[in-house]
């Protein structure tokens, strides 16, 4: 809550600064985020950031914000019924699948860009260049797998579209809240902001933000990965002592 008030005040300040130094050229775009880093700490339960910026003249144009997480090993599986039991029968290991993909725009993207321009600008999950690693699939099958991937990622809040999420103020300033769910994975997140007019790209800006584990949780994670034998032995010792203490504590009562 405190941070939100702070952002609002900050936004008001930035607003004045941007308004006074509004870009002279009409074809510029600057964007920034309200945080320099998202820290996954022990009490992390998702985070809302603010993406904001200014364009030369946004009155007759639209803004699209693409927030893209690290490409990780992502596998899709398809179940089939084998003698009454549903079993994973097919697997697609994806190439180029981002672990996080949020789109924010002033209007539904279909109204802003034609399918061809969406593809040229690689906007939308259908234009990410998603390909299976080994498997050969027909165009139609691939499309089915991509739709299913989208469906599952949307369900987890990792892929999302927020049509109308971006608001424009006084024709130059734009802003959108970016919601990062609790299940977000650490890594480098790339942000691309596009200014579109009449289906044409007018200006573009890129920025990035790191999502990183911090604090005690980060320490535990690092020990578990870098000193795994020690970690395992420690976990066992911890359990033995805890069990012993529990038995002793309840023996007296």
């Amino acid at each position, binding site marked *: 809550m405190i941070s939100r008030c702070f952002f609002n005040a900050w936004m008001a300040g930035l607003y004045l600064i941007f308004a006074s130094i509004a870009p002279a050229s009409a074809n510029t775009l600057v964007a920034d985020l309200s945080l320099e880093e998202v820290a996954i700490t022990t009490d992390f339960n998702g985070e809302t950031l603010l993406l904001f910026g200014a364009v030369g003249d946004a009155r007759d144009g639209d803004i699209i914000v693409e927030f893209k997480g690290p490409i990780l090993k992502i596998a899709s599986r398809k179940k089939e019924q084998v003698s009454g039991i549903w079993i994973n029968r097919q697997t697609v290991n994806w190439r180029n699948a981002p672990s996080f993909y949020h789109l924010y725009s002033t209007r539904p993207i279909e109204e802003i860009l034609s399918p061809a321009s969406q593809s040229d600008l690689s906007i939308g999950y259908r234009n990410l260049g998603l390909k299976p690693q080994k498997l050969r699939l027909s165009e139609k099958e691939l499309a089915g797998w991509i739709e299913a991937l989208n469906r599952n990622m949307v369900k987890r809040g990792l892929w999302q579209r927020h049509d109308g999420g971006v608001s424009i103020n006084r024709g130059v300033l734009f802003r959108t809240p970016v919601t990062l769910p609790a299940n977000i994975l650490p890594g480098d997140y790339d942000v691309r902001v596009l200014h579109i007019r009449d289906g044409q790209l007018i200006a573009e800006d890129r920025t990035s933000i790191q999502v990183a584990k911090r604090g005690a*949780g980060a320490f535990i994670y690092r020990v*578990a990965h870098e000193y795994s034998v020690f970690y395992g032995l420690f976990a066992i010792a911890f359990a033995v002592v805890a*069990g012993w203490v529990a038995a002793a504590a309840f023996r007296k009562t």
Partner: protein
Amino acid sequence: MYIYLPIAEVSMHIAVVIGLGGGIGFLSGMFGVGGGFLMTPMLIFLGVPPAVAVSTEANQIVASSVSGVLAHWRRGNVDFKMGAVLLTGGLVGSSLGVLLFSILRDIGQIDLVIKLSYVVFLGIIGALMLMESVRAIMRTRQPGARRSKMHQHNWMHGLPFKMRFRKSKLYISALLPFFLAAFVGVLSAIMGVGGGFILVPAMIYLLGMPTYVVIGTSLFQIIFVTANITLLQSVQTQTVDFVLAGLLLFGAVIGAQIGARFGTKLRGEQLRGLLALMVLMVSLKLGFDLVITPEDVFSVEIMK
């Protein structure tokens, strides 16, 4: 208050985690079982990745078995020689199980194998327990009915490597407990359980051990098997979340004490009948999940 579990990489409400530990601890205290067979499916159901659920549960069972074995040890109800043979088999089996687990995970079949193991083994044990307790309840109503002989001589007594187990009053082939424990060890590593629910009846009916040494001895060997799983999973897959294990344990310790007091109010065969019903319900629920048409035949897994 939410807590971000560092290894599971999910955020859970701290009351949910401790409450889960407490609830399952209550049942395990009441019925005198480990509770792994309830905890692991619940963790998976709550969104903890299966590998983390199984490894973390192994870590928690180390603690609950240590705390359980102490009382039996004090009363001298642990057959250490039998325990040593069992744990040798258990170590071999659980190491194989950890290996099998990672292979199954890579080929995307671990969920299926976990569920199938639960359906088959909980189903069998639950059905046997239910029949046994129904028979026991009937017997108490019909005085004069005679108990059948505890164990008979058969092919198992012809096996080599015979050993004398003084405390268990047995002279049997060491291969028998060795392979039994190895088999249970594999299941332990895959299902995220201590395996007491198979080991205890098998020690009584298959090996013919006297009931009073069975629980202590099985707890004794479960400590080593689950410690082995904890270590191997820590090294191989880094899936042991000791923060999660600690929170579950905290709830379970308290729950088990309350449960144990509750359990004394019920009669033995009624208690076993209820436990059997609970085991059967878990088995049926998981079996049902495998059979009904899934909401979406596609699923997605983010691997690291």
